[in-house]
């Protein structure tokens, strides 16, 4: 039976059901179910978040200055972005102003995350949806070299280099121990790259694996470690001392040189390897135009990277802010995270209970009571689910809505909004990519558009790293070495009852934390994260979320090997630990159990 969703999609669950669980090459636990019709076209899609950790319950009653460390552990892949969002929320609540250097160093940390996360996503979480590793075995190394040299000046491109790699790969495959590449969909008809492009991509998969660890050393310099560097309410924990005794224990010229070198290397890698590979791979998949989903209709971004400290208004944010609805690029709406009528979360199809499930709740008023219950049409048992019933509750993720609309967030959303705002930093690279590939603007609204926007943003972020590094040096040269404001460090200086909100653009999209501080302790804490927006289930009105929308109408070549499903879901860069967290305002204990 075909039904129309209020947000304009047709769903038909009568055909063959395909289940992908676990979805791998993601963070956390995700299940996808689809129905395909007799022509193997996806007509129904169901996204189920399959984990819940209850972190915000745990935050209740704690010192708000510690919240960054707890919330950072929401996710170790986008490590840092939750911590930054958290210190911003607490600073907002307590009206703390941070020094200019702290803002610059935080931006460097956040941009480092963007560069690293996008690079690792492209090569290690997403590339195998487009690249056939086994096909690389039959490539001609000389032709591979010619291909590589025709698209980039990256020096590792000789025939010998590719021959050695191919030999290594051949022996690896012949050993019979395929490790990570075991049971992949090799030889699948949906792989379109010639063997030489596959070999080049595998070479860069390995080079990127070795290089990515360098990028994050910037976090280690300023935050002491990565994953999970250290942050500070009121600034950053690392002091600057470039000239005096004790400089070896602070940010000094040697540390700054290391940061600069990594920024320079990152720019080269991103511009000479990532971007050319992206363009080369995309050129073979131009006909694969699926996966657009909500992106041509509703997208949202909170904005991020404040150019100057303590100003979070749209004009000071280098990443765009706003919302587009119903595909009208001529109007970019304001987004207000404090307005209780704008951002709301619904639980009609989530494994939680509200007193009244017809209404949505703003994060400051959020309630979370787990209520794990399968629908009556689910197949299997409680602890062995064969098929989800999407008419009932079916996910550990809530359904967030902006003014009632399901929204897509992420790099593509940011680029569409930047494009709509005629911001040349975003519009020009998009136009260049479309021109180079000979594609219309509508091609942007697709799986490949999502993947391309992420690559463009990686290049953008690497450039901005250089900009903020220069700003840091300028400040130090001018004698400004302040990194922390401790005027309100002592809780006795705090107001009795305050609320705050902090936001960032995480690699995967718009991220907000809402905190309520009462008597110097956390009274309530709520995070609404990018994967909640993208992976959330249907709402009570029947509006489907971004993952579900993106899968519809896609042909699946082989139901046993649903490569196309992975391709589109991966284009969002799922992060499930992020998406499932939530707490009740009373913070009641959900189970009186202690492990001990």
């Amino acid at each position, binding site marked *: 039976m075909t039904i129309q969703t209020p947000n304009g999609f047709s769903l038909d669950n009568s055909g063959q059901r395909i289940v992908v669980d676990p979805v791998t090459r993601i963070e956390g636990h995700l299940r996808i179910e689809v129905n395909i019709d007799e022509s193997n076209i996806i007509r129904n899609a169901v996204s189920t978040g399959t984990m819940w950790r209850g972190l915000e319950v745990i935050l209740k009653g704690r010192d708000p200055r510690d919240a960054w460390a707890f919330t950072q552990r929401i996710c170790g892949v986008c490590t840092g972005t939750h911590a930054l969002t958290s210190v911003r929320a607490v600073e907002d609540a307590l009206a703390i102003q941070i020094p200019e250097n702290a803002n610059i160093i935080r931006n460097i940390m956040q941009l480092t995350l963007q560069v690293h996360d996008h690079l*690792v996503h492209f090569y290690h979480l997403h590339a195998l949806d487009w690249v056939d590793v086994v096909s690389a075995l039959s490539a001609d190394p000389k032709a591979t070299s010619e291909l590589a040299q025709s698209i980039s000046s990256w020096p590792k491109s000789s025939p010998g280099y590719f021959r050695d790699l191919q030999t290594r790969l051949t022996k690896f495959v012949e050993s019979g121990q395929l490790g990570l590449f075991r049971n*992949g969909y090799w030889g699948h008809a949906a792989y379109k790259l010639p063997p030489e492009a596959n070999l080049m991509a595998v070479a860069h998969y390995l080079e990127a694996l070795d290089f990515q*660890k360098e990028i994050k050393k910037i976090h280690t310099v300023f935050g002491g*470690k990565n994953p999970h560097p*250290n942050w500070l309410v009121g600034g950053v*924990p690392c002091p600057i001392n470039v000239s005096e005794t004790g400089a070896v224990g602070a940010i000094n010229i040697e540390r700054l040189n290391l940061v600069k070198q990594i920024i320079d290397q990152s720019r080269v890698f991103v511009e000479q390897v990532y971007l050319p590979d992206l363009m080369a791979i995309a050129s073979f998949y131009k006909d694969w135009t699926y996966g657009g989903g909500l992106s041509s209709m509703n997208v949202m971004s909170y904005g991020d990277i404040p150019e100057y400290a303590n100003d979070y208004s749209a004009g000071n944010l280098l990443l765009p802010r706003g919302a587009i609805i119903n595909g009208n690029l001529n109007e970019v709406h304001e987004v207000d995270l404090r307005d209780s009528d704008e951002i709301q979360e619904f639980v009609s199809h989530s494994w939680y209970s509200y007193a009244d499930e017809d209404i949505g709740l703003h994060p400051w008023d959020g309630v979370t009571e787990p209520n794990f219950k399968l629908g009556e049409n689910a197949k299997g048992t*409680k602890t062995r689910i*064969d098929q989800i019933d999407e008419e009932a509750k079916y996910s550990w993720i809530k359904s967030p809505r902006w003014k009632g609309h399901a929204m897509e967030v992420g790099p593509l959303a940011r680029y569409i909004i930047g494009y709509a705002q005629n911001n040349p930093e975003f519009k020009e690279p998009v136009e260049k990519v479309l021109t180079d590939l000979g594609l219309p603007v509508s091609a942007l609204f697709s799986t490949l558009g999502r993947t391309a926007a992420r690559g463009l943003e990686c290049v953008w972020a690497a450039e901005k790293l250089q900009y903020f590094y220069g700003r840091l040096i300028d400040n130090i040269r001018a004698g400004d070495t302040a990194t922390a404001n401790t005027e309100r460090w002592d809780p006795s200086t705090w107001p009795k009852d305050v609320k705050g909100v902090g936001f960032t653009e995480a690699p995967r999209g718009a991220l907000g934390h809402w905190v309520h501080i009462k008597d110097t302790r956390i009274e309530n804490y709520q995070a609404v994260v990018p994967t909640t927006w993208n992976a959330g289930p249907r709402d009570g009105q029947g509006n489907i979320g971004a993952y579900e929308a993106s899968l519809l109408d896609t042909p699946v070549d082989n139901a046993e090997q649903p490569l196309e499903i992975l391709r589109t879901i991966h284009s969002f860069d799922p992060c499930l630990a992020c998406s499932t967290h939530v707490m009740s305002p009373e913070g009641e204990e959900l189970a009186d159990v202690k492990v001990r």
Partner: protein
Amino acid sequence: MTSPETFYDVFRQQGISRRSFNKFCSLTAASLGLSPAFASKIAHAMETKRRTPVIWLNGLECTCCSESFIRSGHPLVSDVVLSMLSLDYSHVLMAAAGHQAEAALEETRRDHAGEYILAVEGNPPLNEDGMFCIVGGRPFIEQLQEMAAGAKAVVAWGSCASNGCVQAARPNPTQATPIHKVIKDKPIIKVPGCPPIAEVMTGVLTYMLTFDRIPPLDRLGRPKMFYGQRIHDKCYRRPHFDAGQFAEAWDDENSRKGYCLYKMGCRGPTTYNACSTVRWNDGVSFPIQSGHGCIGCSEENFWDNGPFYERLANVHTPLGVESNADEIGVATVGVIGAGIVAHAAASALQRARNPDNAAKTGAGE
């Protein structure tokens, strides 16, 4: 289908010379803190062994352990996964998904029973019949116990698998449970930390592959080689602690001079880990070097021993004399009374709020 292949074969096939191979073995020995004599032993082991299958499972966690693992600088993680072991299942990196991924588990369980290493990131929640963490439609704990049954040994990656970590902090709403409470009949090597240091992770695995045994463990199940000493014992700021020189506020003169962070809440004195020796990300830095105290992320219950910026009540000195920084301060530079009173009050408050805190201070000793 298979021809025997060893580390050394793989190295040679990659065009790596015998000389480079020997150098690699020496570096591995050095990075494990072993004498140069062990290099030849490593070389011999690598020449004769097939790659050991490793199954890496993820429960409730944040994936920081996988992210840390791929940061390994020596050995490079690309060499680890292509040449040193056979990573037959990894939620984060594997090509296969869905039932093809589940099949990889079955195949390893069937074909390599008793031979594979099970590496666990995260932990199983026990509430709601385990359905706070679902894999393949089933509770994660079922997958965990099935795969543990056939494993040669189990590695508990990070604080989630070892101690419960953040989701097990009070009130632990999902009843997230460290793996040693649900796997009783296998040797478990705990590698705590949130996350553990990359080179510690690859070091523990290469130790097991190279010497074909599990490393000596302390009474909490942690490899002595990396968790045998406190961060404080080898901290380069230790002389400032002993001299009573402390940072008193963020970004103050003393912070800029690199003085001891004890008064800023540093948990180095009660934390057993290799951060101050191995350091992080190929030796670039560690939290204290970058100006923030240790939060004790490799210790049990560290989330409930906060607030992080409240100083520890007591510190054990190497001589076994219990004292605190204010007393040391009095003895050496004469910190005046107000500070001591404030400190005593703060400590009393902390103890009152958290009655079992005193017992935990110094945990791991």
